[in-house]
């Protein structure tokens, strides 16, 4: 059981607990409809998101990865998203060099109150991933 064939692609989201996860909650409370592809992994802070998680997901089956955190200056931990910004930007610039389309990875800032913005981000990113289609088939285990 995984994505619903034909209808969904595999999109993984890493959301910081304080802002973006809250923003997604706000979107829910306001009943802002969104595409169903995204699966959300909750992290304390975008600064917790090691770029390797994104790579791991993309290499192992995700068609797209989204990372969202507090707006700069609004980090619950005051600095976490500043580190995240540098690391994720570095990854963003690096991915396509290895042959993985950087459009499959997006990072952005969504506050707990920005339900509408969250709806927009999810909708647009999902559209973008569907436009790209599924990521290359990965080989089976072994040598």
């Amino acid at each position, binding site marked *: 059981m995984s994505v619903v064939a034909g209808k969904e692609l595999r999109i993984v989201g890493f959301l910081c607990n304080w802002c973006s996860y809250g923003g997604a*909650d706000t979107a829910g409370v306001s009943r802002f*409809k969104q595409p169903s592809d995204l*699966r959300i992994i909750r*992290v*304390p802070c975008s600064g*917790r998101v*090691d770029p390797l998680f994104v790579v791991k997901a993309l290499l192992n089956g995700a068609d797209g990865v989204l990372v969202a955190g507090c707006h700069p200056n609004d*980090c*619950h931990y005051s600095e*976490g998203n500043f580190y995240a910004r540098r690391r994720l930007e570095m990854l963003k610039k690096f991915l396509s060099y290895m042959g993985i389309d950087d459009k499959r990875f997006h990072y952005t800032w969504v506050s707990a109150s920005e339900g509408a913005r969250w709806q927009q981000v999810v909708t647009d990113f999902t559209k973008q991933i569907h436009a790209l289609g599924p990521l290359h088939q990965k080989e089976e285990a072994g040598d």
Partner: protein
Amino acid sequence: MRVGVFICHCGNNIAGTVDVAKVAEEARNMPGVQFATDYMYTCSEPGQEEIKEAIQREQLDRVVVAACSPRMHELTFRRTVEKAGLNRYFFEMANIREHVSWVGEDKDLNTNKAIEAVKLAVEKVKQNKPLFPSSFEVNKRVLVIGGGVAGMQAAIDCAEGGLQVVMVEKSPSIGGMMARLDKTFPTVDCSICILGPKMVDVSQHDNITLHAYSEVEEIKGYVGNYQVKIRKKATYVDWTKCTGCGECTEKCPSKDAYDHFNYGVAPTTAITIPFPQAIPKKATIDPTYCRQFVRGKCGVCAKICPADAIDYEMKDEIVTEEVGAIITASGYGLIDLDRLPEYGGGRYPDVVSGIQYERLLNASGPTEGHILRPSDKEEPKTIVFVSCAGSRDKSIGIPYCSNFCCMYIAKEAILTRDHIPDSKVYVFYMDIRSPGKGYDEFTRRAQEEYGVRYVRGRVARVFPKGKKMIVKGVDTLLGTQIEVEADLVVLATAVTAAPGAPQLAEKLRISYDQHAFYVESHPKLRPVETNTSGVFLAGCCQGPKDIPASVGQGSAAAAKVLSLFSRDMLESDPAVANVNINVCVGCRKCINTCPYGAIEEEELRDGRIVAKVLETVCAGCGVCTSTCPCGAIQLQHFTDNQLLAEVNALCLS
């Protein structure tokens, strides 16, 4: 592993667009799941009972609840499993309401999404480890930053509650903005008359230590145990000797010093006592004006001081105070008149700010309470008040409402009519915001009893014409242009964050918004807490608010501190970073990146250097974990393997 999964219908909120029975059925087939069921309201009393019973009956060792957002009920259910004898961290929540049923229409897709959300939570909970809080002692002293009305209230309440209080005030006297006000709305009480007694309480309370003319230099430590370095700025007057007699201020030859207390309505002397009721009532020298400093010779005050208190050699002094909690009531600022050129701000002496006007009204102000316009010291007959001078104005980056201007303009207008019965008073306003007890009645009185002319519309320009100031604007109600020949224009200048607010926030390690107002933990439910435990907010540092609101917050912050200190030991959140010393290579990267300085070097017996986490300081952001190249430092409850389990649950298989 024996995981129990509970799928909540949340009435129809979830069950309406998710096939909960199917989710439960799929959950039953997940590896490690021993028991799965669906329930109408899992958070209800019987719902929680159901969980407890299942834990006993099925000998569950992990629990997953698929329901609303964990931000809603995670704590509720953690308590539930704990009551049933499980460690509270053997619990995970799958958010299938806010993130699924409420945002998707297609029931099949929702159901599948919910199933995956559960799968995710199951894989995570299987990786969870039991965590146990450790406890540590609390230093039951509290630091209050700012001696305005909010800070004083907080200090007094804490002191009355038996706590030792350290108050730091950056200006020479406590009292803050309220001490500058002539009267207060809506009662038109004499401001200093009601504030004075509080100031005296602060100065005389055995439990309160006051550091006036001082600033916070550095803050180290964590909730329960802060070390605070305080810079006592040089006053060049030995306050232990100064009696506040004021002779120096009369004799001081440099009489063109800027008067900070009176917002420069009139110049003052280089050595001053800010106002008659000042506390402490001591003199301070402003070296930027004092001739002894500027020209290197004068010494008048030193000669005449009967107490021999003058000390030109005085240096700043750093004192260290140890406290267990901090209340910051560091107040607000006002935008410079110069930023309002269209209103003639900063260009024409007869365009003043609301706070300057308070001083013109005030009996102990430079004009002894006679309203005289700055330019020619004549009594103005036509006075125009402009509200929202800067406020609610995106163009200068202040989109917000300054909260209390509508009210003090009404008050100042009324007082003007009292002082000068034959005066004409206009108020240009966008909206009248008077949503307080007796507030709307007050603004109505201004219009109906005192004949203040309220014009709904913005002022376009203010420019001089002879001795007059021409105020051009529109009356949007009549839809006509309006032009008033005024003698004096009063601008309700926008409230800003206090100067230096960001720097202080960084010392306190609390966050601030784009306008540098401090951010509370929750805008509705945790208004005086910050995200840094042990640091609380009171008054306008959090946003513009009037006196009762500030006082209320002062008391609220005090109550928070008192309840924090009601225990001798504090429990630290165990979901903090943890170092595996077998793996740590001592590269110090975590130490350099930790936003809290919560990581130290530790030398092992074999001489190896490894990282060591100060559990009580660590806030659990996990920056260290994503920085550590070898995965030696792991944020508990969000370890690499726990997050990888979630990634794999979604990507592999």
